């Protein structure tokens, strides 16, 4: 029987009521009395020397409060990068300055050059048209390999070249890996592109800066996944505002998918301008603006080689990747192609030797950073494609080849520096095979052929590292922040409680699932628990929501704080019950003395904490509020097996997804309904990457896919019903809930299944096609068939 509450129950989401009735509170719904509006004049040129910006005419336009250019930001810090990668020679990456407004040069289409603050947005835009910008156009650096050629135009004149870093991992394994390739019975090689994407949360970014001269306090309302991180980065590194004078609020946020992790110039601008203008300043991005100012994702070009012995055991893996950084280093950009990618190259397999080389490259394009999965989809895609290609080359069953090479003993230390604590890859593959009716595939293929269509089946596995991350470890790897999470549990006198968590919720349903955990621990109704997030003035600290870390790290912090609450409440209960603390048991919201019928209700204990008339004041303080910081001891390692069946129309190249099955192991699960929904959403984004989405630049650095007219978002009729299972559960061994995280799995695991299926379909028709680069749009598939 499904539970009706607590851990494991598909509790309906409490946040839905406000969203369904139109009374959510998104950043653009916030208006501060007297606010002005900012319009950013953005570069329409990819690369150029900024000779002058004349704002005199604009400043005199109706409604204009003030026009800002780079000169107004002298003395203001650079937008910081939160991760410093060390290259294969031990040198730090090249790290350019990232000004709030373009300084000296423009380096990508969309870079803000000037900002007009005016009474209305239209007035600001009118005035922006009157700004005279003199730019000398420079050749645009777009192609990554050309960017690294000697004599290439430099994106940043003060850097040596366009190479951010050349990373080798694990450098000590390189010679042995090369030797294994020399000795291999078979080598499969694949060159591929992991296409550049735009995250496209449906809510565009918004920032409202406010300032009070009376108290010297700044407030920023912003569409962020991590308001405390913004407070730290912007306050400490850009504007020099101490935390106690800077409040950052991220209210209801309409999706993030990574792109709302980062600290952006517009946030710093609105905060700065609110003080400079002595009034609130609001910026609302249009979708068109979002395409050229939100950090993009993926954009890797990779060559991968797999060595096998005569028995088809994987003996070595070698990759060379070029990773696009764009024009500047966004907050976590350097970590994505390195520590979030190289460490995952073992996948589900016991390949003994692995060497990963990544060259990160500056180009005249929008900065690239984490997007749902961040590095792990890139790792999974190349690995699962090359394994599939190897199976086809060797004439062996792709599932059997995978099974033969599965890691089966845990904990397992990979040759790429991580230790998988737990997993059961055969179990998820067994489950997948049960779901997909493989024996019926030939009949389905025959049916498709009757209708003039080619049918293909593609399968793959994935492993991901979530729950980022042990702070001391990531510190060694270059992170400039700790990656713990905090929670404060405040119990009120009448027994209700508030959990203040650093894990922001922007679609994940934390307000529901987090409450389920605490309800289970105390044995009270979920409705007695309120989850508060998204405001630095309410929540003590938070590192935010990304990398499927919320329940594994934020949830663990909440568990620790709740444990502290329970421990203190037991002390109070033992006093009230005149029993030894060791004999006190908490069950179903009541404290009892073991082996007796003496008990005291939760509410009586909480009341005693705040009305301490009969209370052990000599031993403990009144009140019931506890904070915990949880720093994980390892990553978590969700895994799974996915299958996709496609039909290809050979006349047009159009691919349709006929069936999609996902068997995941997320460890323990708090709310199955929410977990299933997270998988669905991830699948849609992964299938979107595989079939539809393509963020493309031309050779001049102009963005070709700059709106929904050109960038294909998955729609309802592009997708099937999904068959999702997460009954295979190997609980995480190192966090208190045994949870692993589920937010990115769908996006990580689905692209190779789709491409493997299309290759299968085309080969079934005798086409000599071993690979098609994503997105597998009709024209590309048709051209591959010619």
């Amino acid at each position, binding site marked *: 029987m499904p539970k009706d509450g607590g851990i494991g129950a*598909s509790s*309906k*989401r409490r*946040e*839905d*009521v*406000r*969203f*369904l*009735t*139109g*009374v*959510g509170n*998104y950043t*653009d*719904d916030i208006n501060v009395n007297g606010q002005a509006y900012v319009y950013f004049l953005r570069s329409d040129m990819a690369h150029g020397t900024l000779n002058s910006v004349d704002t005199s005419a604009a400043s005199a336009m109706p409604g204009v409060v003030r026009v800002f250019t780079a000169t107004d930001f002298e003395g203001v810090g650079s937008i910081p990068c939160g991760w410093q990668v060390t290259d294969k020679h031990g040198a730090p990456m090249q790290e350019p300055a990232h000004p709030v407004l373009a300084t000296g040069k423009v380096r990508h289409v969309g870079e803000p050059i000037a900002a007009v603050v005016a009474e209305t947005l*239209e007035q600001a835009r009118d005035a922006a048209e009157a700004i005279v910008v003199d730019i000398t156009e420079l050749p645009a650096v777009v192609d990554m390999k050309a960017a690294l050629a000697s004599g290439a135009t430099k994106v940043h004149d003060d850097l040596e070249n366009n190479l951010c870093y050349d990373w080798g991992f694990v450098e000590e394994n390189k010679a042995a890996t090369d030797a294994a390739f020399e000795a291999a019975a078979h080598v499969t090689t694949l060159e591929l592109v992991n296409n550049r994407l735009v995250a*496209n*949360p*449906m*809510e*565009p970014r918004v920032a409202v800066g406010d300032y009070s001269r009376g108290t010297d306090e700044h407030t920023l309302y912003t569409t962020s996944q991590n308001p405390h991180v913004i407070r730290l980065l912007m306050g400490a590194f850009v504007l020099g505002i101490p935390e106690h004078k800077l409040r950052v609020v991220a209210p*209801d*946020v*309409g*999706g993030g*998918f990574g792109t709302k992790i980062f600290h952006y110039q517009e946030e710093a601008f609105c905060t700065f301008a609110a003080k400079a203008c002595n009034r609130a300043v609001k910026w609302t991005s*249009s*979708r*068109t603006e979002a395409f050229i100012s939100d950090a993009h994702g993926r954009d890797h070009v990779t060559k991968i080689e797999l060595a096998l012995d005569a028995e088809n055991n994987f003996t070595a893996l070698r990759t060379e990747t070029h990773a696009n950084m764009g024009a500047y280093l966004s907050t976590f950009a350097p970590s994505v192609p390195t520590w979030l990618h190289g460490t995952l190259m073992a996948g589900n397999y016991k390949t003994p030797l692995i060497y990963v080389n990544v060259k990160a490259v500056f180009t005249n394009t929008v900065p690239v950073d984490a997007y749902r999965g961040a590095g792990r989809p890139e790792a999974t895609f190349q690995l699962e494609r090359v394994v599939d290609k190897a199976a086809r080359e060797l004439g062996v069953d792709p599932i059997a080849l995978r099974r033969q090479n599965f890691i089966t003993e845990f904990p397992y230390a990979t040759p790429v520096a991580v230790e998988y604590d737990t997993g059961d890859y055969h179990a998820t593959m067994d489950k997948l095979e049960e779901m997909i009716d493989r024996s019926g595939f030939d009949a389905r293929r025959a049916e498709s052929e009757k209708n003039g269509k080619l049918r293909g089946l593609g399968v793959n596995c994935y492993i991901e590292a979530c729950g980022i991350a042990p702070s001391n470890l990531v510190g060694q790897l270059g992170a400039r922040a700790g990656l713990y999470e905090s929670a404060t549990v405040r119990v009120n006198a009448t027994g209700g409680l508030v959990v203040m968590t650093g894990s922001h919720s*922007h*679609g*994940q*349903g934390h307000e529901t699932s987090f409450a389920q955990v605490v309800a289970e621990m105390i044995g009270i109704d979920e409705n007695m628990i309120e989850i508060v997030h998204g405001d630095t003035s309410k929540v003590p600290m938070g590192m935010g929501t990304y990398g499927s870390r919320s329940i594994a790290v934020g949830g663990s912090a909440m568990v620790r704080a709740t444990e502290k609450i329970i421990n203190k409440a037991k002390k109070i209960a033992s006093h009230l019950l005149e029993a030894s603390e060791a004999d006190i048991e908490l069950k179903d919201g009541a404290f009892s003395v073991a082996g007796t019928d003496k008990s005291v209700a939760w509410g009586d204990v909480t009341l005693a904490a705040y009305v301490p008339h009969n209370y052990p004041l000599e031993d403990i303080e009144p009140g019931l509020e506890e904070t915990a910081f949880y720093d994980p001891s390892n990553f978590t390692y969700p895994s799974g097996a996915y299958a996709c069946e496609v039909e290809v129309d050979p006349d047009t190249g159009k691919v349709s997804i006929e069936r999609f099955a996902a068997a995941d192991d997320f460890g323990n699960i708090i709310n*199955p*309904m*929410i977990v*299933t*929904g997270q998988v*669905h*959403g*991830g*699948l*849609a*984004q992964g299938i979107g990457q595989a079939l539809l989405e393509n963020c493309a630049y031309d050779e001049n650095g102009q963005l070709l896919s700059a*709106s*929904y*007219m050109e960038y294909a*978002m*998955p*729609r*309802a*009729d592009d*997708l099937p*019903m*999904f*068959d*999702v*299972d997460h009954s295979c559960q190997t609980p995480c061994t190192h966090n208190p809930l045994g949870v692993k995280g589920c937010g990115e799995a*769908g996006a990580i695991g689905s692209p190779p299944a789709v491409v493997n299926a299309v290759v299968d379909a085309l080969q079934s028709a005798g086409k000599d096609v071993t690979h098609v680069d994503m997105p597998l749009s009709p024209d590309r598939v048709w051209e591959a068939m010619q």
Partner: protein
Amino acid sequence: MTQVSMTVNGKAASGDVEGRTLLSSFLRDQLHLTGTHVGCDTSQCGACVVHVDGQAVKSCTMLAMEADGSEVSTIEGQAGADGSLNVIQQAFQDHHGLQCGFCTPGMVMSAAALLKENPKPSEAEVRAYLEGNICRCTGYHNIVKAIMAASGQDVGAMAAE
């Protein structure tokens, strides 16, 4: 400035607008009905869908002056006077048809228009009707399920949870 008057969710509403004022801006900025969202500028995402004289329209692609004299209904007018969710809203909650909630008002309004026109749509008909509503969170699975459930059809057999 020109005065426009319309009935919004059953109540008279009026205000002064410029020629360029969009219906979505009028609703959000002047009537403070911020449930209607704006997610794109090319008339594709559908977060702004409201009903004008009973028909679903994209309020970001209609001038407020074009709605002068019309009956407009928005997401704020869908629940009962006591706050109880209507059938479609309840189905969205029951079947987890929303995550971040940003596209949700448009989805609910489009679903209402669909069911008025086609009370028992097939899965394919629901998917086709949602062509103008983009959701980035749900993969549509549970939206489709919710709309079919709201139409009184049995969705128990539809794939997984």
